[in-house]
């Protein structure tokens, strides 16, 4: 057993650690959702306020901070787009979607065609068919992002290229939420 002083130095985990370190996962885009979820649950089993229900207000506050932090990391890690954006940022290519609005013309054309298709779609089946198409496009873009982030040697250049695709994916995601809204009201 270590003494008190070295014991403290041994426990390095901090609220401010990056999401991958917190979850003990390699810092890359390719991840298994089941593994992320399993680590999330095992972390929550340690830090959730319910675990400290009989230990007073102070422990409750600390537990809540940790549980919030673990949920925040889980939310980012489990969503491939949020995870990619986070990796880009860690590698010096922040997304800054508001300042980088320039998109390739072909991408903008595709967006406009989708919007028209959604406006003209009648009935749930037609809207769902469009959703399937957009879903395919989203998957292709995501696999391109993964390749850039995980397989390229020049990390900084690759991160900038990935960030550009992440911004495109954010448009796609917004469009998909519009589709979902239409389905909600259908």
């Amino acid at each position: 057993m270590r003494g008190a002083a070295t014991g403290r130095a041994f426990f390095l985990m901090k609220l401010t650690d990056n999401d991958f370190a917190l979850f003990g996962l390699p810092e890359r885009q390719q991840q298994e959702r089941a593994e992320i979820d399993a680590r999330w649950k095992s972390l929550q089993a340690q830090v959730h306020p319910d675990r400290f229900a009989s230990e007073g207000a102070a422990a409750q506050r600390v537990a809540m901070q940790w549980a919030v932090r673990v949920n925040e990391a889980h939310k980012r890690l489990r969503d491939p787009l949020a995870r990619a954006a986070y990796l880009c940022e860690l590698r010096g290519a922040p997304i800054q979607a508001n300042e980088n609005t320039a998109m390739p013309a072909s991408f903008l054309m595709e967006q406009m065609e989708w919007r028209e298709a959604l406006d003209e779609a009648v009935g749930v089946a037609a809207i769902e068919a469009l959703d399937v198409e957009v879903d395919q496009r989203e998957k292709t873009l995501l696999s391109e992002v993964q390749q850039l982030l995980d397989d390229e040697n020049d990390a900084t250049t690759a991160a900038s290229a990935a960030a550009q695709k992440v911004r495109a994916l954010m448009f796609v995601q917004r469009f998909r939420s519009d589709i979902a809204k239409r389905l909600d009201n259908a």
Partner: protein
Amino acid sequence: MALLQISEPGQSPNPHERRIAVGIDLGTTHSLVASVRHGHAECLPDDQGRVILPSAVRYLEEGRRQIGADALAAQAEDPENTLVSVKRFMGRRLADVAGAEKLPYRFEDTPGMLSIVTRDGLKSPVQVSAEILATLRFRAEDTFVDDVFGAVITVPAYFDDAQRQATKDAAQLAGLKVLRLINEPTAAAIAYGLDNASEGLYAVYDLGGGTFDISLLRLTKGVFEVVATGGDAALGGDDFDHALADWVLAQAGVKVRSAHDKRAILVAARAAKEALSSAGEARLTAELDAGPLSVPVTRSQFEQLAKPLVDKTLSSVRRVLRDAKVKTDEVQGAVMVGGSTRMPCVRAAVSELFGREVLINLNPDEVVALGAAIQANALAGNGKDGELLLLDVIPLSLGLETMGGLTERIIERNSTIPVAAAQDFTTFKDGQTALALHVVQGERELVSECRSLARFELRGIPPMAAGAARIRVSFQVDADGLLSVSAKELTSGVEATVQVKPSYGLADDQIAHMLKDGFASAEADMVARKLREARVEAERMLLATASALAADGDLLSGAERVDIDALTSAVGDTAQGEDADAINAAVEALAKGTEAFAAERMNRGIQQALTGRNIENL
């Protein structure tokens, strides 16, 4: 007093020191209390053997009241003073209640939440709910001949912040310590999942007397993870009664005006609806002021009336599946909860949607209270460590009003709680020194279509050019699903922080006032009660500290240990005295003094989780 008793982690205290923890299902039409006894959750009966307490309170002369079955029996005879289904009014203003004119009550549009005029004065839904909760508390205390340590109270998953706060206020008024508010479908899933050792993805379809919830849960080895939830906080069995009553009145060409008639027709409709769950036809009969009414109804007529309501629930189910990105065939089973799922048309519709028979092998009335009791037992420290973990979500998005009456979402619906998020805002005028913030809950983009939770102002911003200030607004939702909001101006170094409690909740002094007003609570001696509660808290804190020191005392330096020991003996000493405030102050000092230690212990716990070691191997 058993001071400094060390209990090993994973071991419950001695049987005679078990804390009495109860689960309470505070329902629209009826309420139950359950507890874990001899390792088994069961609903507690009253002295006549009845486990169900109708959620009805009748106010009589001279401040007397009837609660439960007696009140229910008098509802048509004394409709204005017999309050039922008040859960539908919790945290609600008069304008929020659809069809209020069909109810036999005299409503008053009081600030924050409506009230009802009775012969005993103005009653808030919180007070009425507190009467029901106190009745159940006394039932538990009579059963165990001991004080209740704390309660887990269930709320519909789709309850918003105001409704949750109102429920917590009602518990406080009833003298109950709330260990946790948990969602009704989650509670049902605990009872069902533990009973059947289920693993996988389950839907819980919970149609009660006044509320509808649909939750999708993933069950794995004692972890109950809510994937998504949805519903309608104003849709339940009562609405089926109203639909049937309206139809019958139209058939007979009768109009009801008096309070008596309004209640009589609803009571008759409910009886006919219940009869139609087993019979193909029934007769709706009521004694109205103008004479007797008797109209035959077939099941298929009723099901036609019910269809729009059932369809409404199905569209909620579909939305939840979409939110969770789950197809119906991935769901292993649909668990039916709530008395209204006894209607054959409801079961058939849900079976059809999921393409499989629904699960009805549990008592739809009791299962929520049983699940709450299991969680209460675990939270009170009576259960085995690590056998149960709930990961629940918030049902509705939370946000702020921005320019033009639009909503800016800060926390999305279906986020796992506890959760926090912050967003930066700025000033739009030169020299602006205050910023008005309006907190809203809901999915609509227009603020006017969302529920307003709170308004507050951040003042004292140093004068700056427009757009130069950086105001960070932070939202935090705790494990009960309750929100707190704070705002800070960051650039100037001058910080202003405001904590808000949603405006729908009762203010603390209002609660204090109600307590003083001689609430039904049998104990008038508040001082004695306060002292006893302080001592219980002190003992609890000492036990917790002792077991923490036993497990992880090696984390502390010698000086830190001395400090904590001093705080501990201060708590022990004051607890021997009669001064409740002094005990509370000592407990608070110990809590503060052990905060860093608690953080260190949690670091150790996390490290262990990551390296896959468990305590036994250390």
